[in-house]
């Protein structure tokens, strides 16, 4: 996506601040931005005194996740204030409805400070969207892996109960679980769980 675009020259490289309480997602995003040639990327994960931190870093672009209640704090920057530079929200420019929709779906929003070229912003936002989506997928896989691991543990314990109660080998216990699951059109994990529940009740 960024291959056709030359990396921004150092002297005009925009300073990007990522505001995200998820350190893993922020790291993924930062890595993506650096790979695309944006050298000046900083992260804020602590929301206390958020505005003061942002003013101190003086970024050209602020990226924030939409699950973050602190987004409302950023709105204060649009006000006439002591701050010299006034950022504007990505949503203000509605010329590209599809990319706005994509960013809301991905759960990310961006604010840019006046003077930055729109095309540049678009490529950065696209990158944020794809990295946010990649993170969501990763999170999903992690959840699934965790669940699979949990299921493995349950099956192992059920096997142990069967081996003890019915004098089966581990292999036989597993075959019994699997054939019961097939007969009852259920998952092995569910059958294993009901064995655990039953043994708990019959204790």
């Amino acid at each position, binding site marked *: 996506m960024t291959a056709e675009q030359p990396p921004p020259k150092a002297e005009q490289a925009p300073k990007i601040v990522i505001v995200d309480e998820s350190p893993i997602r922020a790291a993924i995003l930062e890595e993506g931005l650096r790979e695309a040639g944006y050298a000046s990327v900083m992260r804020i994960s602590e*929301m*206390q*005194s958020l*505005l003061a931190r942002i003013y101190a870093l003086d970024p050209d672009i602020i990226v924030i996740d*939409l*699950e*973050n*209640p*602190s*987004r*409302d*704090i*950023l*709105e*204060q920057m*649009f*006000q*006439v204030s002591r701050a010299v530079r006034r950022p504007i*929200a990505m*949503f*203000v420019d*509605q010329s590209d*409805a599809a990319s*706005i*929709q994509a960013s*809301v779906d991905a759960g990310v*929003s961006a604010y840019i400070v006046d003077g930055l070229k729109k095309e540049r912003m678009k490529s950065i936002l696209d990158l944020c969207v794809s990295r946010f989506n990649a993170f969501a997928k990763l999170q999903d896989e992690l959840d699934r892996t965790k669940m699979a691991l949990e299921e493995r543990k349950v099956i192992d314990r059920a096997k142990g109960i069967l081996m003890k109660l019915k004098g089966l080998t581990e292999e036989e216990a597993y075959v019994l679980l699997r054939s019961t699951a097939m007969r009852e059109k259920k998952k092995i994990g569910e059958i294993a769980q009901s064995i655990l529940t039953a043994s708990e009740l019959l204790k």
Partner: protein
Amino acid sequence: MTAPLHIGFIPLVDAAALIIAVDKGFTAAEGLEVTLVREVSWSNVRDKLNIGLFEAAHLLAPVAIASSLGVGHVKVPIVAPYNLGINGNAITVSPALHAAIMTEIDGDRLDPMATAQALARVVAARRKSGAEPLTFAMTFPFSTHNYQLRFWMAAGGVDPDEDVRLVVLPPPFMVESLENGHVDGFCVGAPWNSIAVDHGVGHILHFVADILVHAAEKVLAIRQSWAAKNPDVVARLVRSLSRAADFIEDPGNRGEAARMLARPERIGVDAEVIQRTLDGRLKISPDGKIRENSRYLLVGREGAGRPDPVQAAWLYSQMVRWAQTRISEEALKAAMAVFRPDLYDAALAISDSGSRSENHEIGAFDGPEFNPNDIAGYLASFKIFRRLG
């Protein structure tokens, strides 16, 4: 059944009519299929309403006006056919600031002029001793909380932009920030003032009803273009909200309503804290002192559901007073047109003569009576204001 609707809300007690309308089945009875979406920021609610992810939303009345005027953000005309709440906010201060104000006060502690003047003396003393200025938090630049806090302190001679720090803070962070001393006070809606008192970290200094007799707080906000295309759905929404408001305002239903609102996926706090707000019976200091005011939050009572364009005009005047926008006849008209009593009346089949009788005064404790036809004159009577350069 009509097409499914997605309606955004922020977990606050003034979303009560909306939550009860859905959870008690009043929207379903009107043939509406509604999914409520709990949000974490007003920016999210506004943006999702703007781009059409929400058909309607529980929204700060000033955000609906700012959005319609294109002030501070993209211009998307909004209509408000139903007023979800009148009043409901409070000003809470830290025990230290409370003690300082009470030492300085000359007059009734429930009189906002007396407390504001006391605050001015506290501020002056701090400046003299070289202490940091006090910090007050509110929820959003375009919020009733921002305007109410400013109105109160400015009346006592405290310039909200020069004499103190005024910061935006999401409501869930308010109590913690008061506790760890990052802020000295705040103006926020329920349940957060009560939670600060329960935690022993705050004193409720004023109910907003002390500052303004009637203050439009949250509205049901709908994109004007969508409302124009779906007048029947808008009417059904208004009717179900009106039924929900009647249900909530019946004292016999309060317990049930509070329990429904308290659910984790709705407001997610103790039912008892919610009921305190609905009953207008609030614990105002950590020592357990109770203050009662039946007008703490009006959900439907005193004709609260009917949007009043004069309220919109007052909110617009505050945007002008604090230099969020310039004064113009055209903008005033556009602001007033956001509040749509005609849609409310049409939905509930109210005849003109019946509805006009209930005229809501703003009833501010300071300044002349508000006149929407002379905003410049009204604002000229206040000593402290900002002017756009």
